[in-house]
């Protein structure tokens, strides 16, 4: 049993290291994001081996479900960043590697060496595991849990409304009459868009006003 755990730990560790290496070395940035997801999965497996089920689930939900998907979206929405002539590693990567490795070791090695590891011989009773958390969500905090869902839905819908439409194109739709006329390069102001309000001065001088495209969307 113990040996199986050791072997699994080794395999998972290799998977994480390999995936992390691929993240920084592949050329295609989408592939890098996919490798990042693999790396996150490996870390979730480590948590499972440590019997931290809740952390494992949170790792998958937050890092893979939200962060990685966000990265993918950001990559897809920003165009023209994949230049085949651009070198993957920039020139002084060896000295950079050395410096970061030294800094990393300077912090981690003394920490690991001096730390008083609390290793329990037998598993301790969980203080707050997924079970207790789920219980709290479904009992005492049921209503805040649900309201938070409503809050997220409203925020999501609002964000989409604000962000989705092409802003410049939409700005054209709320121009004032004067601005609209200026855009069309006319001398005379076109008649007001309200049909109930004819202005004789402008309609006599400009008998055939060009149809305003926004008039279609207007209600009575």
């Amino acid at each position, binding site marked *: 049993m113990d040996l199986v755990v050791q072997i699994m730990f080794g395999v998972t560790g290799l998977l994480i290291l390999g995936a992390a290496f691929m993240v920084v070395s592949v050329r295609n940035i989408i592939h890098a994001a996919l490798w990042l997801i693999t790396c996150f999965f490996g870390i979730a497996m480590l948590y499972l081996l440590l019997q931290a089920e809740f952390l494992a689930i949170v790792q998958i939900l937050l890092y893979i479900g939200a962060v990685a998907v966000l990265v993918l979206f950001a990559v897809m929405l920003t165009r023209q960043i994949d230049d085949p002539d651009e070198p993957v590693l920039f020139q002084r990567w060896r000295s950079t590697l050395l410096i970061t490795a030294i800094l990393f070791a300077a912090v981690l090695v003394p920490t690991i060496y001096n730390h008083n590891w609390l290793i329990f011989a037998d598993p301790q009773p969980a203080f707050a595991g997924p079970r207790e958390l789920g219980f709290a969500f479904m009992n005492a905090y049921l209503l805040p849990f649900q309201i938070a869902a409503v809050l997220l839905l409203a925020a999501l819908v609002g964000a989409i409304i604000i962000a989705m439409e092409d802003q410049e194109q939409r700005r054209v739709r709320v121009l004032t009459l004067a601005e609209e006329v200026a855009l069309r390069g006319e001398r005379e102001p076109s008649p007001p868009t309200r049909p109930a309000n004819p202005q004789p001065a402008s309609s006599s001088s400009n008998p055939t006003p060009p149809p305003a495209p926004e008039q279609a969307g207007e*209600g009575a």
Partner: protein
Amino acid sequence: MPPEIVIPAIDVRVIAPMLTIFAWATVLLMVDLFMPGKDRKLTGYLALAGLAVTALVTLAVQPAPGTSRTSFSNMVVLDSFGTTLTLILLLIAAFSIAISINYLSYHNIEMGEYYPLILFATGGMILLGQSTNLILVFLGVELLSITLYVLTAFFYPRYTSEEAGLKYLLLGAFAAGFLIYGIALIYGGAGTLDLFEIGAFLNTSLAVGSAFPPGALLVLIGGALVLIGFCFKISLVPFHMWTPDVYEGSPTPVAAFMSVGTKGAAFAALLRILIVALLPFKIYWLPVLGVLATLTMLFGNIAALMQPNMKRMLAYSSVGHAGYITIGIMTAGTHGTESFLFYLLAYALANMGAFAVLITLERRGEMAWSVDDFAGLWKRYPLLAIAMATFMLSLAGVPPTAGFFGKFFVFAAAWEDGQIFLVFMGVLSSAIAAFFYLRVIMRMFMDEPVREVIPIFNRGLTITIGIAVVGTIVFGLLPTPLVSLVQNSVIALGVGG
């Protein structure tokens, strides 16, 4: 093996109003997707139907007078105060939607999501009026605020609306920081977020000795931070800086909705916090609120005096009115709760009506918000001028309008509570306020038109203005039914009381 997780006994009736409105909003989002064509008026009418259904549900589940129901680990309470407030908020939301339906398409910003967002915000307001737990208070404030950030910027093709949305978002986030930090400190001091338990904790810990126990001190500091967070939301001076800019930039129906709905809900939550949880600290918060109310009444009305822009004038006047409402909640122990509800309804009718009149004068792109545009309105559109005059008189607090009784009840409650100075300042600032309200009336009736302004009428606007005028005058002449309604709207002071 028996099931270990027992479904807790919940009383769905307690949350039935907000459950209805949230469910309706969610379904409406989906229905709107499948609606053919670009016309989104049907979504608006469906949202109105949702508000009507919610009102019916609210009436169906209302508790017997003097009783209350709690559920969900005592996090929400359904008392007659909450029921009355819910009905007022639903009326405000219905007015806002009615004046929006044609406004949005006229200004080319029609999107179906507008109406579900209003419903979500209304649900958040109802939640604020009912919650007895600081977690829910925070969630309610955020639900309300995040929805309103979007609605404020709904006119985002116009730069002022974009600016208003961003300003409101930044200041709102700032206020949320105060609020959540205060809540955390209260939890650190009292070890609970339940309003009843915080009140009990303070009573026991302050009764122990003369020294100020550290837990109570933390609650005091936390309470002050929570108060600051709320002051931003209800725009009390000196936390009011955002109000005129945001009201001016946002779509006019949204400004109307914010000016009454947000204030009413935030005041209700603050009222519950002050009365249920922090009552032992009344000696501390009473003078603070008194100073804030005085500053707010004076500053709001004096600033409104100098405004040539009607929309900004109404924004400053709403700041001033927040001061009067503050007097109402300060004296909530005696008759303040009733005066708060009455004032809120009177203010809602007059303010929604005034904003509706503003919308009739609003052209696409060019805004007829100057006081000059009201000049001579009586000669061309006598009915519109009379309606606007009614709203102005009610806002100024002149009999026989509902606004007069609103102010009267607030001042009477303050007098009874011994706040003579506040009554004096309130009357003084009302006199200042009367000047600029009457100036609008004078220009409408006495002056010649400065420039040609043609109002637009449609069904939603006409009905809203009509109901608001009739309500303002009827409640001004016969306040008795409303008084008996608000007198029964007592706040639940204990669990299941």
